[in-house]
């Protein structure tokens, strides 16, 4: 008991402070919404909730139902590559490779030294990078052999990652004590530069025009003193040139960010869900949805564009996923597993 207590507080903080993204398809029909439920730290009760928006049918423990075994400890993110889904299981230090339609297990990629993988991105046909929160590194994954091929040292406690051409950008959060992005050349697997951003960069989202949006959650300073915190910021980076385009303050300690289909409005979790004009870089509505969520998702299909928010409730029982239209009006909801941390949308 004493060990979980001692470490859980530290880890929970890192988990709740971070945000994570799942890839989404945009196509004609949204035929499946998967919620990645992190589960409780150290309890290996992560799960996947499957929701059919057409029938309204909800299926819990979808991975376990399909494969007969729990997925592991803290399911953090999912990345679609071809017909496969790469499920990053953070505290199990592994990546489960599954069929993206059925979730049938294909392979397991083990990350050495319990480096704590967070987010994965494909950087070439047979290569992917995954950030390692405690490894202070990026693992190079061979997508043919499904093995960790090598390790690239980056800044402290990397979380978000995005690729533009041959450049990969890694957000070094430092658990609030860092303010840099590492830039990696995917041809040489070497760090070629560092970009200074706001405190605690946790996630990076890419616009269609290769412009990167970096969420900087702000530093906490002395945890017992809220007055010495630094405010949340958004940094916009030109992904092609690796230069800062602009930055602006959003305050608080923001979490998940999603971008709409037209790349003109961003939605940021920051106490409430705020909407941001992506052209003027100004906050449109600081309480576009008056509710705080643990994670956000955004889906696009012929049925329309929707914002999805996941409420983790008290982090100890099933959560709730809520669907909103672009007017911020609730459309639907369904129950999830414990700590719904990310969405993945399947569309045809």
């Amino acid at each position: 008991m004493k060990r979980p207590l001692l470490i859980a507080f530290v880890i929970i903080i890192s988990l709740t402070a971070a945000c994570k993204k799942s890839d989404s398809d945009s196509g004609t029909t949204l035929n499946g919404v998967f919620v990645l439920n992190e589960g409780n730290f150290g309890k290996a009760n992560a799960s996947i909730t499957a929701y059919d928006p057409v029938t309204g049918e909800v299926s819990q423990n979808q991975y376990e139902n399909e494969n007969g075994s729990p997925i592991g400890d803290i399911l953090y993110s999912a990345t679609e590559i071809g017909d496969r889904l790469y499920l990053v299981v953070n505290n199990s230090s592994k990546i489960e490779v599954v069929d993206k339609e059925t979730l049938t297990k294909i392979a397991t990629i083990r990350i050495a030294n319990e480096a704590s993988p967070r987010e994965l991105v494909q950087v070439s046909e047979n290569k992917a990078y995954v950030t390692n929160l405690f490894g202070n590194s990026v693992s190079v994954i061979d997508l043919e052999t499904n093995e960790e091929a090598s390790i690239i040292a980056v800044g402290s406690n990397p979380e978000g990652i995005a690729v533009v051409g041959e450049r990969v950008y890694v957000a070094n959060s430092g658990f609030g004590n860092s303010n840099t992005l590492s830039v990696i050349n995917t041809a040489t697997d070497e760090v070629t530069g560092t970009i200074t951003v706001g405190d605690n960069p946790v996630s990076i989202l890419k616009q269609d025009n290769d412009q990167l949006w970096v969420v900087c959650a702000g530093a906490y300073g002395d945890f017992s003193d809220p007055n010495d915190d630094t405010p949340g910021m958004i940094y916009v980076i030109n992904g092609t040139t690796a230069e800062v385009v602009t930055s602006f303050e959003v305050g608080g300690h923001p979490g998940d960010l999603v971008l709409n289909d037209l790349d003109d409005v961003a939605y940021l979790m920051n106490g409430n869900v705020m909407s941001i004009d992506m052209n003027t870089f100004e906050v449109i509505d600081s309480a576009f949805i008056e509710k705080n969520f643990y994670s956000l998702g955004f889906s696009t299909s012929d049925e329309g564009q929707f914002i999805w928010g996941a409420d983790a409730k008290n982090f100890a029982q099933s959560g709730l996923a809520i669907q909103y239209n672009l007017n911020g009006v609730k459309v639907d909801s369904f129950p999830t597993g414990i700590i719904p941390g990310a969405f993945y949308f399947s569309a045809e």
Partner: protein
Amino acid sequence: MRFITLFIAVSLWLSANVQAQVVSDTLKMKEITVTSTRYRIPVIKQPSHTVLIDSVQLANTNGQSLGEALSRYSSIFVRSNAPGAVSLASFRGFGGEQTRVLWEGMPINHSMLGVLDLSLIRSGAFSSVEVSSGSGSSTYGSGISGSVSLASLINSEEFTAGQSIGSNSNYITFGNIGFEAGNWTLGLGGSIQENENDYRYYDRNTEQEENRRHATFDNDQFQLQAGWNKEGKRFQSKFWYLKSDHEIPENVFVGSGTSRQYDSAYRWVNSFHFRKGNVQHGIKSYLAQTELDYFDSNRNIESISTGREWNNEWTATAYFSPVVSLTNITSAYFTEVKTNNYTEKKYRNLLSEQLMAEISPTKALGIFPTIRVDHYSDFGAAVSPSLGINYQIIEDEIYFHSLVSRNFRAPTFNDLYWPQGGNEDLKPETAILTEAGIGITDQWKNIGDHNLTFFRMDISNGIKWNPGGGTFFRAQNYLSLLSYGVEWTAFKEFEVGTYKLSYSQSSSYTRSTIDEARFEGDAAVGDQLPYVPKWKYSGSFSVSRGEFRTSLYGNWVSERYSTEQNDIRDPEPSYFVLDASINYSKTIGKTQLDLSLQVNNILDEQYEVVRLYPQPLRNFLITLTIKHKNDN
């Protein structure tokens, strides 16, 4: 399953139906005096039920932790994360924070965490353990769901040395020696344990058999005691040193891990008892220093903490008449915690005043009113009244007992001061306990000693760490809980021809739930709390003849839930673990040689007490003990 049913059925039949010659020299229940309730009277005269685990039973669990002994002989459910890992007592549906653990009457729960890790304590280090389910805050202050009271007494007329060798590279060397000279006694005892805990299990993560890794456990314990006794005046000094260095096995999905923990504790208690007139006095002083250092290189965690305690207690019992006695206990506790987790050194001062009466208006009736006031420097006062009765329906044969008490649990240092989410505005948890039971002794139709106790606890202001509306979890007075159930203990010794047989069992039913919705849409209301089995049964059966003794120990635990919402996952399966031992004992002059073979989990049950922490399959422990009486 059939084996479980057979084992329980035979055991229960034996307890109720054996018409055999009662062993004449058996220690009868009515003679057993317990002290953990602070009423120094036989267990059958107490207002609440207490289970005594004696030195023989503790010796039978030699090589195992205190948690194993509590699992085997009491209604406590021990949440063990497998050998070498953390092990906490769960009493009447609540956790290790709510269960008070005492050594020589002094609380030893860790001040930062509020719990005591039972895996660190070897059961053989103690002369007796009392498990008092109804021991409320009016008895020892902070604590809601009973107490576990450890006593150390090294035999002053004996030299003992032993060695255990077991499966999974488990080695224990132990011994003690005692002397008596005039009015003085001196004792020294200790043990050194090294355990690899590299047992095999089926790994649900890799889907193959694996060896448990990262669970090595080294543990050294020593006790030094001195006593002086003359003309009713009694002085005792007891020192207990514990050092543990162990890796921390995590669940099978987390991998080998790199975390490691170092614990050490120096505890020293001195007491002096004397009588002046019709007043019996007791003065006790306790000093302790505990270290708990936790390291995880992968996660960059380095947690170092030192706790210091200095407790003083003065007890005075006045015997006004054979009908009334009154006890006053005045205590002062000072606690200091220094850790790199807190911004500064933290302190807690506690002053307590306690009044206890024992009123016996008739020979059959005992009335036990008590009130205790604890004043804490960090959150103020807590008042804990209680009223207990004991009525001898047939003297020394059938009795009724009942207790109503208001209990509290003080927030831990972490609850108050942890930088990310500690809450200095916390109030103590409070609980109303009601219990009533009936006991039967073996003197009534030779059916053995039985006790059936019903209980109910209503907890309010339960402390839990929750997402407090911001990014971090925060300690909050958050829970309203209800727990009720029934406990049944039974014990019987008898002879059949030249065979001596004994049977004991402890079983319980516990329903423990969240009583009130904590937020809109709270789906856990009315569900069984995590890791609280509704049913638990533990029983032992021993047969001895001449120099041989063989024993069977069964422990069945019903299904548990790993989450507070019972329908999220399938329940954790129930399990039945059967252990057995064979002992051979040979006495030559003043020297006794004991050889024992203990086989744990002989049915090879594949089980987990806590989800994804696999327990060992069948394993062995061989122990050779030499005892030499040094009396004249």
